[in-house]
């Protein structure tokens, strides 16, 4: 890719990465900030990154690291469901979306990270292990625990809705 292609690369991948970060963080503003920071870092390294087979993977890794280390994430998580911004052109958050975010929120960050990388980004376990620098077994364990906890919380939320309904 030539240097001039950075803009096309940016526009092609920005939204998808924000979506992935939203699923992990539960906060759109936080997700966008992490993704913008990652693309900012990519922009000054584009001469090298553009030669990569998948420069978007590099940006995703940086964005996840930025998000992981964000001082604001704790506060953001607590109020995620309440302050999900809704631009005029965007759909309002559905009840299911809020349920998923609420169910994800209490999970340990590492479990959420594994879940998003596997189920949303579509990465195999081995690739997640390489990215997170942990054994594949650790990734499997995080996925299993995260999946179980998420199922439990979503099941409880649905049960509550049914009782109210």
């Amino acid at each position, binding site marked *: 890719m030539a240097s001039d292609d950075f803009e096309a690369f940016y526009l092609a991948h920005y*939204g998808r990465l924000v979506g992935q970060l939203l699923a992990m963080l539960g906060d*759109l503003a936080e997700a966008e900030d992490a993704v913008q920071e990652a693309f*900012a870092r990519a922009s000054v390294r584009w001469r*090298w990154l553009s030669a990569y087979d998948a420069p978007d993977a590099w940006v995703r890794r*940086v964005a996840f690291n*930025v998000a992981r280390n964000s001082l604001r994430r704790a506060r953001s998580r607590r109020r995620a469901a309440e302050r999900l911004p809704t631009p005029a052109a*965007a759909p309002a958050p559905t009840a299911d979306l809020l349920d998923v*975010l609420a169910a994800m929120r209490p999970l340990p960050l590492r479990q959420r990270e594994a879940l998003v990388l596997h189920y949303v980004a579509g990465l195999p376990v081995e690739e997640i292990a390489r990215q997170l620098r942990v054994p594949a077994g650790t990734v499997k364990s995080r996925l299993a625990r995260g999946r179980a906890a998420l199922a439990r919380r979503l099941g409880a939320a649905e049960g509550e809705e049914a009782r109210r309904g």
Partner: protein
Amino acid sequence: MGDNDLRTRLLGVAEVGERMAQPPPVGAVRRRGRRRAARLTGAALAGVLAVAVAGVAVLDRADRDQVVTAAGPVPPPPLVSDLGPVVGAQLLDADAGWALTADRLAWSDDGGRGWRTITPGDAAGLDLLTAFFLDRRTGWLVAADLPRDGSPVELTAFRTGDGGATWRRSAMGPASVQQSEDGTGPLNLSFVDAGHGWLRVTSRLPGQRAEDETGTLLRTTDGGRTWERLPDAPTQGAVHFVSRSRGWQSSVGGLWETRDGGRTWAAVPAPPPVPGRDGRLEFAGLPTVFEDGTGFVPVLLHGGDPGVLAGAGFAETRDGGSTWGTPRLDPGTAGDSRFPILAVAASRTLLSLDGDQRTISRSDDGGRTWARRGTDLAGRGYTALYGMSFADATTGWLLSAYLSGCGRGCDSEGAVLGTRSAGRAWAVVLPGR
């Protein structure tokens, strides 16, 4: 709930996020990246490669307990070669220097061939954030036990007067700590003598954007026993002091000066335009000022294309930094899309490592004439180099960025490279990870 159901529901969240995402103009993203790169260059040009692994927002004034702490084992600890990713380093003279990792401070007396750890014993378990040595004996280290959730933590200063053989500790007060993703966290130390020093930390409050970060300054006048909080500095950039009263802070495109030890700051006017060169000049780092009052500060010339540099070089002062003359640009920097790494190597020797790492320009007459030579860095896979500083006209160190998300194609995170040929040949001093 099965795998498919889980995938569907998580993808639903991501799809909503993708639809709601509103990418800012690509120019804004590029500017953010360039500002960040400039900040790294600025910190290096202070002559100190002290780069922290965390940003720290100080919330309150410090406790002032002092505890005598011993360094590592006695007799002197064995040499080490594998320190892991280095996040800060400082070359004090042609042979002596230190390197900092997240959990170890190491010292070399032979230009980096051999290293021994001088980590304070009381720092075990703490995250080491930044360090500064005035000479081979007198130095400081700031550390904290970083919580993962950003909750307040005690910031601790260590000081040594015997090259790290023994350390004394003082508490600096509670702080909120923000881990930095790539080891270039906003925090640095600057000392002008054994008593007077400053710690600069960046305050980025929850919900605050990076562009709105402010600088918090702590000052000590008793060698680090006690620290007082000064009024906030104008920006979040690195600080560098050359006397008890005079110092500078470099940030996005600007330079600020204090003449009262950091209590008040004033913006330094942009240097005079370069004849025959259109564009906008901006300071791109901290000044280096010598005892005779001469010195240089790096500058960048931005042209019409926001993605391409129109030039880079140095402005000179002959009055201790009160005024800056017309910049002299390295002719090799025009038209580059990456920032060169600029360094003041000696009183008249200036160096400019090209953004593509293939060439380095050297001037021995304060920027009037430049000679461009090849380097041996090309093709060695250093994704992001920064923090070039020199102990003399030929001997210097250079860091490769510690990018925890760097991955393939970036196999030397947190390495220290050394040169004794003014940047033409670089040897690995510490391999990083």
